[in-house]
């Protein structure tokens, strides 16, 4: 390619990417700008792109209109955190067995686990609801946490990593009188830290964003998650874009913050799932 053609080519690339990126970000701009608009710029028959004054009070109003908002946030943070911690624990334990121990039924159990990944969660929605009802867990934190404390995908990801740690290390540790559990805890888990971060991120975000399950297993206000609470708020205040955009911004903000903090782990984690297949 000649130099002039190359410059023209790259200019086109940048123009296309910039136009695309602006289009992708426009809904966010719409959300943020609407969340701080005054009524006179909101209820007119055209879109005001640039609010002439910033009304932060909308956020306070949204927060006050729904007295349970703090509770919704707490619930989602609590559920997502506990679920993530427990899922990492059960995954690490199971992945350890699959990667480091030779035992009866290993291949069969592993294949069955992989098989369950094929089953869409919508198939198990009704039976799981029936099980939770039978256990008397409807409208409890248990219903929102326990079913998600183990994940085949989490086990699989961790096993892949654990397998790269040479078994000779275990032989050496054994000579030093190290127990299996201590070895897992002191040697393997610290080595697998990147996998813990990635896997934990996905689980946390999945927990924060989940909707259908919390929608069906909770009834009372104080157990609602932020997504279910927000959906209720939407049905109640369907004519108040200012309040709805403020509330949506608040629900999105923690995830966007988390994403910016852990962006690389996140993107590499996704890129890796694509390459492995």
């Amino acid at each position, binding site marked *: 390619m000649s130099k002039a053609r190359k410059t023209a080519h790259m200019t086109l690339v940048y123009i296309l990417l910039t136009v695309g990126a602006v289009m992708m970000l426009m*809904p966010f701009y719409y959300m943020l700008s609407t969340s701080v608009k005054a009524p006179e710029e909101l209820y007119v028959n055209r879109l005001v792109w640039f609010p002439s004054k910033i009304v932060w009070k909308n956020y306070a109003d949204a927060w006050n209109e729904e007295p349970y908002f703090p509770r919704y946030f707490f619930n989602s943070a609590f559920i997502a955190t506990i679920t993530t911690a427990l899922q990492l624990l059960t995954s690490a334990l199971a992945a350890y067995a699959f990667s480091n121990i030779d035992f009866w039924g290993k291949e069969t159990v592993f294949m069955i*686990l992989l098989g369950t990944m094929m089953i869409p969660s919508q198939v198990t*929605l009704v*039976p799981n609801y029936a099980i939770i009802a039978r256990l008397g867990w409807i409208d409890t934190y248990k219903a929102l946490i326990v079913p998600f404390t183990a994940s*085949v995908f989490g086990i699989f990801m961790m096993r892949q990593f654990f397998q790269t740690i040479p078994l000779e290390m275990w032989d050496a540790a054994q000579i030093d009188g190290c127990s299996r559990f201590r070895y897992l805890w002191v040697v393997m888990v610290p080595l697998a830290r990147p996998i813990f971060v990635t896997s934990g991120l996905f689980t946390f975000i999945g927990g924060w964003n989940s909707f259908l399950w919390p929608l*069906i297993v909770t009834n009372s206000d104080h157990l609602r998650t932020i997504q279910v609470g*927000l959906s209720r708020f939407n049905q109640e205040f369907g004519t108040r874009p200012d309040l709805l955009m403020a509330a949506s911004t608040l629900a999105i903000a923690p995830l966007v913050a988390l994403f910016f903090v852990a962006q690389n782990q996140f993107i590499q984690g996704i890129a890796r799932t694509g390459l492995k297949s």
Partner: protein
Amino acid sequence: MKPSHSRKYARDTMAAYLYLAPALIILIVFHFFPAFYALYLSLFDTNLFGRWNWVGLGNYAQLLRDQDFLRSLANTGKYVLGTVPVGMALALVIAGLLNQRIRGLATYRTAFFLPYVTPVVAISIVWTWIYKEDSAGMLNAVLSWFGIGPQAWLLDPKWAMFALCLMSIWRHLGYNVVIFLAGLQNIPAEYYEAAEIDGASGWAMFSKITWPLLSPTTYFITIISIIGSFQVFTQVYVLWPNALGGPLGTTRVVVKYLYDMAWGSYQFGYASAIGYMLFAIIFVLTLIQRNVAGRHVHYQ
């Protein structure tokens, strides 16, 4: 086998199952068993409490005659066709643009990826207003620059499915871009250098190098996009909160229908049968794709 060895094997097996126990118990109770329990439930007319009438395969027979169910299947099919090919093509183009050793790669990637981390409920509320039917809606405001009059995106049966697809493509684009980009970066640069020396055109390079070597990635994205699209629910629930899914039911997808049957009319057996039909469809599609992939996917 020496006795000492078999004793060690027995001891190891014990230890292994101890380590597996927490995960296995949860997975058996909430994943493995429910898959069979769903099949059992689908043979009953039940509200899970007082009413338990055995109907055998009656639910399935009824499903095949149920116009609402068949329409929800058709709607889901339209949604899959409206999101997967377009979403993948766009993602591939963007990944290709990002793969040109550009400056500011991380910033662009973030812009495309950001929608993917947002909760569906919150972002669907935002899009509800983007799709507002008057000139205050953002989409209508943008289109007015090109002289296009306002449309009732969510209320007009002609546009509802389009609106649903557009939002979903927007939200998932970044995920596919990241995977495609990783796939592109995985192709050795020497192939392109060699082709360039031979005077190959851009199109030749794409069709002879990029496309075949990218096929495992393309296959992966196709499968997970289709499976994901069949399970769409939340967007429909939030965009059309007071309806059975879209104007005249035009966006009532399978999972929304399942939800309405179970938690709207307490037909839990019937809803289980819907779940199983969904499973069967996804399963068959995956098998077909695996078959096709066997012939067309080239692993390096």
